[in-house]
């Protein structure tokens, strides 16, 4: 239990677990948690409590999400780069074998789904799959282990699963969305405009209706992509936290809660892999649609 004293309630425990470590700019004149007033020009600082985070608004960074996300991305790059350097046409061994299996799996999925020729798609899919998987994998680390350890050395909040942060998932989804727009315009040119305006009712009168429907459909893609991953991981993390909260209810709950924790973790192995896979496949499908004229 990440108990901060005897007074922490279960709801406080849960909220604490769902709060990011935030660094941001407080607006001028804001009264901080300890009563100090922020200078007129504003102030960049670590947020303390959810009120300050709300006050920071958009001018804030979730430091924990960024560190874990980028760190895991760097691990991905490092491991795969090492294999890429060692890869040869000879007999593969150990790690090379495993990485090649992943690469082949991604390559197969891309070839099944994406029929155009674009050297970006396969590496993009590989990056998404492995990176998202690694971020989801953080969910399997016991919920209190890292946050509580860091709290002991003075870090107040810590959310170690980046994919439970909508900023992270939406950041990637927006990246995919920009690629969709880019390839739609590059491949179809003016046809993209026609697709937005003359579909599904091919009549000049219906252009506003078509445009509205198509734009909604287009925007739904990145949102469904990012929010699906976020929702699934957030819910999964929430269950872990709730089960962990059971430990505080009483000694009787120790064993059932432990069993539940293990059971949910085993089930979650499936979920995190599936979510990473879905994110990858949807990216490929959306980009494939961007490349094809209807």
């Amino acid at each position, binding site marked *: 239990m990440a108990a901060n004293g005897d007074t922490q309630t279960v709801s406080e425990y849960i909220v604490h677990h769902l709060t990011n470590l935030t660094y941001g700019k407080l607006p001028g004149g804001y009264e901080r948690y300890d009563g100090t007033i922020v200078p007129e020009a504003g102030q960049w600082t670590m947020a303390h409590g959810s009120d300050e985070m709300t006050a920071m*608004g958009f001018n804030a960074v979730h430091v924990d999400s*960024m560190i874990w996300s980028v760190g895991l991305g760097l691990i991905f*790059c490092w491991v795969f780069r090492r294999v890429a350097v060692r890869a040869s*046409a000879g007999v593969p061994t150990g790690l090379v074998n495993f990485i090649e299996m992943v690469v082949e799996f991604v390559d197969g999925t891309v070839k099944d789904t994406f029929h155009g020729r674009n050297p*970006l798609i*396969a590496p993009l899919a*590989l990056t998404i799959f492995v990176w998202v998987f690694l971020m989801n994998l953080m969910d399997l680390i016991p919920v209190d282990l890292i946050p509580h350890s860091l709290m002991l050395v003075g870090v107040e909040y810590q959310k170690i699963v980046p994919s439970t942060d909508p900023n*992270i998932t939406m*950041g990637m989804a927006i990246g995919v969305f920009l690629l969709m727009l880019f390839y739609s315009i590059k491949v179809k040119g003016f046809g993209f405009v026609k697709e937005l305006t003359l579909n599904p009712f091919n009549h000049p009168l219906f252009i506003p209706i078509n445009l509205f429907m198509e734009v909604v459909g287009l925007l739904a893609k990145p949102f469904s992509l990012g929010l699906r991953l976020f929702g699934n991981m957030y819910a999964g993390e929430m269950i872990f936290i709730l089960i962990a909260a059971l430990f505080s209810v009483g000694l009787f709950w120790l064993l059932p809660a432990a069993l539940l924790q293990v059971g949910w973790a085993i089930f979650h192995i499936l979920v995190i892999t599936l979510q990473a896979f879905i994110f990858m496949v949807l990216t490929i499908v959306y980009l494939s649609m961007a490349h094809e004229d209807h």
Partner: protein
Amino acid sequence: MNINLTLIGQLIAFVAFVAFCMRYVWPPIAGAMAERQDKIAEGLAAADRAGHDLEVAQQQVDEQLAEAKREAAGIIEAANKRAQAVVEEAKDTASTEAERVKAAAAAEIEQERARAQEQLLTQVSALALAGAEKILAAEIDADKHSDLLKTLSVDS
């Protein structure tokens, strides 16, 4: 659930990682895998070819073996024939020689007989003449009747 600058940060990180993967990770691994695939395909094809070659060679060996056997059989047959012919010839020669020797012997015998007959005749005629001479001592003059005696000896 605040949307904030993390979004932009993640977007930048995303672009960077994808770019890195596209530039430094995917091409070497995919290239090595494709190369290995080619190599394996080549190796399998070579193995197939070698198997086929072996089969052809085996067939050739069989053919040559069969031909050699045929040739050997021919040679043996010819040798047998030749041997038979030689024996036959020897037989012929031998029998001819035997005939010849026999004929020569017969001729010699005949000659011998004729000479003996002649000699005998001569002796008989001489004996007869002597007898007759003794018998006819006075009556017959040898010189006078020699012609007659000669005719007699030839007739007998």
